[in-house]
């Protein structure tokens, strides 16, 4: 894992001092609300419904046990004893006090963490596959390039006041687990015919009000050109991205307006000037950064263990957990273990301070002291010996972190919604709870198989509803919460945007409608077909035909009004 040197530490410490001064000047009336807003947002601080919300970066999803303990400490000391893990490898605290946020940042800096550029119209925390370095299908480790991009983008002098937020994701495996195709820039690591490392570059993806899938503007960008090419893209965007309308300001709108061919031509023209400059990445720097991500000292005979197989036979509950919550590892005898933050009755992605401490302990005991945050709002212990799975399962279960539901309907992505967010139309957490209550039988969840349910409380789409196999979007109709359901989305290699099922449904009817939709799947599926595959084969109509029985009050989606609340702080 990356370790700060003197320079990294100095910059983060200086940032804390700068922000402390900015907060003081704001409280003293020397900075107006409008002047303070971008400054606090670039330190992850929102002013929210009940209290400020602080978003802390977990760069490309990596946490040490020590860092997680600090996050627990912050939750206890400055918040209400818990934190919320987001889809973009951040943790959010919902109850800090504005006056105390500089102290929180100072505590984070002590463990090489920060909230730099976790919000605002700048380059955000770079995200990566949560299985980086441990995935069997990995081509190259994206964490190296994420750290290089993190440094390049930190306090970038030219790109700190962009038209709008800017999100970059990097994947290094055959399978896209980081939703790279719906990022402003998606980078897929690959090797060319000569075996050289490079990137496929996608631009202009994004969700929100105008969901768009990114387009490839370079099939192979050599590693050395990574930063100069990013700089060229950002420079074109900074100059020509729209600034007259917040809803049209993302790079996806610029790419769409120009067309990918013209956008690419502009980027390449800009790039020609800076291709051979100080931005050129030299191999020594790549190797230096790589040296922080060497594998831990795996035991050579870990695969010789026979206890795992015995426990799987002897304990069906354990076997179910292994089947769902444990992923293959590239090293024989090791596994990747999901820590499920999907306990029924608890907001998806939430973890208490005590649970954080417990997970930190498990990481120290079973996973070389490392933890990952995932796009699906779970944690992951990346390097667990197969012989340790059974004790780890028991330990996780004691903390209510072993719900064997990863990849099922219950493994929802869900935004904080109306309960916390000032943008939301809908109490997404209550809907998540309703769905959990309705679908609480594991055999039913398992029968439904792989299913991605994504839930957003408003059109800003923090819950990625467009790319859920099933998406649920909260909409406001005359002050009432209604829910629009979409089917057929995916954020992975087979990326698609979901189709709207039909009229929105009342709050009380969401789970019932889902049940009818799922019944169509159960009746129509062939062999081991996933929900998504059945949907793609038979289309929307059979689902629409059955979804609305007993739903006379449904209203047409076109009559629904988008949220009218200002979205200046949309995540």
């Amino acid at each position, binding site marked *: 894992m990356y370790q700060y*040197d*003197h*320079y990294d530490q*100095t*910059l983060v410490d*200086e*940032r804390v001092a*700068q922000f402390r001064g*900015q907060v003081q000047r704001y409280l003293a009336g*020397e*900075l107006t609300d409008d*002047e303070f807003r*971008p*400054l606090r947002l670039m330190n992850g601080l929102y002013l929210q419904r009940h209290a400020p919300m602080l978003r802390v970066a977990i760069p490309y999803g990596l946490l040490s046990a020590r860092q997680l303990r600090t996050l627990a400490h912050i939750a206890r000391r400055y918040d209400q004893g818990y934190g919320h893990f987001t889809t973009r490898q951040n943790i959010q605290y919902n109850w800090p006090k504005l006056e105390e946020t500089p102290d929180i940042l100072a505590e984070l800096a002590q463990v090489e963490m920060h909230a730099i550029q976790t919000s605002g*119209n700048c380059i955000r925390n770079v995200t990566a596959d949560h299985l980086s370095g441990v995935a069997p299908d990995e081509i190259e480790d994206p964490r190296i390039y994420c750290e290089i991009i993190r*440094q*390049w*983008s*930190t*306090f*970038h*002098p*030219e*790109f*700190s*006041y*962009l038209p709008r937020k800017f999100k970059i994701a990097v994947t290094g495996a055959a399978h896209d687990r980081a939703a790279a195709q719906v990022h402003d820039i998606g980078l897929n690591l690959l090797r060319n015919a000569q075996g050289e490392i490079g990137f496929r570059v996608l631009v202009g993806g994004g969700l929100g009000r105008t969901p768009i899938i990114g387009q490839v503007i370079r099939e192979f960008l050599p590693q050395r050109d990574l*930063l100069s090419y990013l700089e060229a893209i950002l*420079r074109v965007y*900074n*100059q020509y991205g729209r*600034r007259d309308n917040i809803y049209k300001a993302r790079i996806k709108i610029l790419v769409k307006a120009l067309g990918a061919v013209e956008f690419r031509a502009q980027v390449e023209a800009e790039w020609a*000037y800076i291709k051979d*400059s*100080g*931005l050129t990445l*030299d191999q020594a*720097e790549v190797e*230096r950064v790589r040296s922080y991500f060497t594998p831990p000292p795996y035991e050579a005979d870990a695969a010789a263990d026979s206890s795992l197989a015995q426990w799987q036979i002897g304990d069906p509950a354990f076997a179910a957990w292994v089947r769902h919550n444990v992923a293959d590892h590239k090293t024989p005898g090791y596994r990747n273990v999901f820590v499920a933050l999907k306990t029924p009755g608890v907001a998806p992605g939430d973890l208490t301070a005590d649970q954080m401490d417990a997970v930190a302990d498990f990481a120290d005991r079973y996973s070389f002291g490392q933890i990952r945050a995932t796009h699906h709002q779970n944690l992951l212990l990346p390097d667990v010996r197969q012989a340790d799975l059974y004790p780890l399962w028991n330990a996780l279960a004691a903390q209510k972190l072993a719900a064997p539901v990863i990849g099922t309907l219950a493994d929802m992505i869900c935004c904080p919604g109306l309960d916390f967010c000032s943008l939301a139309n809908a109490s997404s957490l209550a809907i998540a709870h309703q769905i959990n209550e309705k679908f609480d039988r594991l055999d039913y969840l398992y029968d439904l198989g792989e299913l991605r349910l994504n839930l957003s409380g408003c059109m800003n789409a923090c819950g990625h509803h467009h790319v859920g196999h099933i998406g649920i979007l909260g909409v406001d109709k005359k002050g009432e919460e209604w829910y629009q359901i979409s089917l057929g989305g995916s954020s992975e290699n087979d990326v698609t945007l979901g189709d709207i099922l039909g009229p929105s449904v009342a709050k009380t009817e969401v789970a019932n409608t889902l049940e009818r939709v799922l019944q169509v799947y159960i009746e129509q599926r062939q062999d081991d077909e996933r929900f998504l595959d059945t949907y793609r084969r038979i289309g929307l109509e059979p689902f629409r035909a059955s979804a609305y029985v007993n739903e006379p009050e449904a209203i047409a989606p076109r009559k629904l009004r988008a949220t009218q609340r200002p979205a200046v702080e949309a995540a």
Partner: protein
Amino acid sequence: MAHIIKNRQIIEDSWQTIADDAELPTGSVLISLARWNQERAALLERSDPLGVRLPNTANIADLVADLPHWPVVALEFPKFADGRAYSQARLLRERYGYQGEIRAVGDVLRDQLWFMARSGFDAFAVRADRSLEDALAGFGDFSESYQPGADQSLPLYRRGRFTKT
């Protein structure tokens, strides 16, 4: 006379900003790009110094031939959050080798000065209702930077990051 920050010091501003419909006085004047374009031939005859204020939509590449005539280029921040002029400043310095003064005008505030300085600005007409003394502190927010900029063509890792302590 108004004051500005130039090269991190507070100085009297010897440049007068002249409206498009006003007659040009003697002495150093800053005029709009529109006026420059309209009266170019006559302005080239002028002996007193003349600088141009560019809108942040101006394409620097189109202006390269005129740059030698301008000892000052003023770049506009209509709102401090509108960051287009950062790119203009870097292009002026890094691509077109502009050596004159690049002045930030408009909504110019302390918390953006560090970014502006790194992008190539060396003069700052801080908003009139703010203290210049206070704004000077903005340059000291950070002691290092990772990435190249107008002030530094190499990234940190190529500047002896690993040979110093």
